[in-house]
């Protein structure tokens, strides 16, 4: 009875706001539910349509492109900053706050500012590039450069990973470093043979967080690729080259109101997320070193 008092809210939260919606989504994914016409069972029809939808394929490609660059890049960069901060520099707290700052800025505000920085004619980025003799690309207006541009902005949001790495680094046993010093190990050797192996569970933890967050990337590309012309407004361009999985799912569900079809996309997305996270754990098992 006592147990129930404590657990009841979460049992409701867990079932009503997670398990039940997930199950209903599974059911919808086998129907042609679209608000306007009567709903009927279509079996796996929605799933079969997905590979034939060229925009869908594009959104999968874009998402794979994004995660395969953004995850390693952010992991590397946040570790790099944490290592810098961990050298015992003066003004440690100031630097830490500055590197953390973009993480607590509203994403939409970040997106707005970068839209202007990326402007191909008047943007300050291309001005700086031209100062060193590089003719900058059209960034957000270029099918080729829009994804790298989004990855670049995303690179500023490493605050959380950096703090987790810092906590891990500050938790290292001093004695191993003393031993390495006696043996005459240099900084690189210490990093390779002590720090990284000891930090490997933290690296995996950060990789998992990044994987879950990056797969769902939505706000940043939505804001950055926002285009408003007299013909109308929209996002994910140019030519769908910045349409990521959740963006397309959102469009199908809440703009086209094809709820059955969007539910199929949602379940495929769920399965992808689970498989990807599972693989991450499985494939890294050999490299992860757990301290006893």
């Amino acid at each position, binding site marked *: 009875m006592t147990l129930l008092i*404590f657990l009841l809210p979460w049992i409701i939260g867990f079932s009503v706001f997670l398990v039940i919606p997930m199950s209903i989504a599974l059911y919808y994914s086998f129907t042609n539910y679209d608000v306007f016409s009567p709903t009927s069972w279509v079996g796996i029809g929605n799933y079969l349509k997905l590979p034939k939808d060229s925009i869908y394929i594009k959104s999968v490609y874009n998402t794979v492109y994004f995660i395969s660059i953004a995850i390693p890049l952010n992991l590397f960069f946040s570790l790099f900053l944490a290592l810098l901060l961990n050298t015992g520099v003066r003004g440690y707290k100031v630097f830490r706050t500055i590197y953390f700052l973009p993480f607590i800025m509203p994403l939409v505000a970040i997106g707005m500012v970068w839209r202007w920085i990326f402007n191909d004619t008047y943007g300050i980025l291309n*001005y700086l590039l031209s100062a060193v003799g590089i003719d900058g690309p059209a960034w957000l207006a270029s099918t080729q450069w829009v994804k790298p541009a989004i990855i670049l902005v995303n690179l500023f949001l490493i605050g959380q990973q950096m703090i987790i790495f810092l906590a891990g680094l500050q938790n290292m046993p001093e004695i191993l470093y003393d031993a390495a010093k006696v043996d005459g190990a240099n900084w690189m050797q210490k990093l390779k043979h002590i720090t990284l192996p000891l930090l490997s569970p933290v690296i995996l933890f950060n990789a998992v967080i990044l994987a879950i967050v990056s797969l769902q990337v939505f706000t940043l590309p939505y804001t950055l690729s926002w285009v408003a012309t007299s013909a109308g407004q929209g996002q994910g361009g140019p030519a769908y080259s910045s349409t990521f999985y959740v963006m397309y799912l959102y469009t199908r569900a809440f703009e086209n109101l094809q709820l059955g079809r969007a539910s199929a996309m949602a379940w495929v*997305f769920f399965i992808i997320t689970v498989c990807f996270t599972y693989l991450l754990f499985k494939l890294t098992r050999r490299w992860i070193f757990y301290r006893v």
Partner: protein
Amino acid sequence: MRVPVIRITKRIALYAVMIIMATIFIFPFFWMVSVGIRSGNEIFMEPPLLLPRHIQLFENLKGTLKLFDYFGNLRNTVYVCVLGALGTAISSAMAAYAFARLRWRGKDLFFALTLSTMMLPFAAYMIPYYLMFQRLGLLGTLVPLWLPYCFGAAFNIFLYTQFFRAIPEELSDAARIDGCSEVGIFARIILPNSKTILVTVFVFHVVFMWQEFLIPLIFCPSDEMYTLAVGLQSLQGGSNPPPWELQFLGATIGSIPLLIIFALTSKFFVRGISLSGIKG
């Protein structure tokens, strides 16, 4: 004599890298403010003007406040953030108490299930989630933006569990001998000893919800319901987008409250993030 020279050069190189990094990280923020307070004819310049020649803060501010209902959006944001944060701070603590301090069958399994929901992407269930609130007649209200959080969230439960496990069991035992109920122990011993983590969870939720964009995009169709995230997005405009300096000033005043919250609570924030990683 050579060793110190090398050491000094290394030191200088280290600071140089850190300062360059800091400059790059600060720049978008600086640029947001700098463009936001200048006059329109200082925007399209080649080369771009780093600092405005004429500061016209008040004129721009008047223009920006006409573009979107800043104070209305701010009020909505604070409202949903605070209610949700209170809700999750209490409900998650209750669940965590059951996981960390009570003995019952199936605990490990349910805890594993709970943690695995952290992986569950919102997009995977957002359609029935939306329709559920429609059935309940709650569309057009701000309820969907805070109510679901009053029933716990996996990440917060995890944070609390880590924290509760570190509180000595003897405290609870002593209270039990004195005839105190579990609810009494929770309210009078555990919670008063967990102020740090309570604040951390509260602040985490405020920052998360303040930034959240997809959820208010779905649930807030009209501008009197907008949270700041959606309000700022609307500044990017339709076919006739407002001038950049007004958009930038909007972004600035939209960011300031969150930055103030962070400045006041950064200790909790950093500690909470560190705590999430150590045992992760």
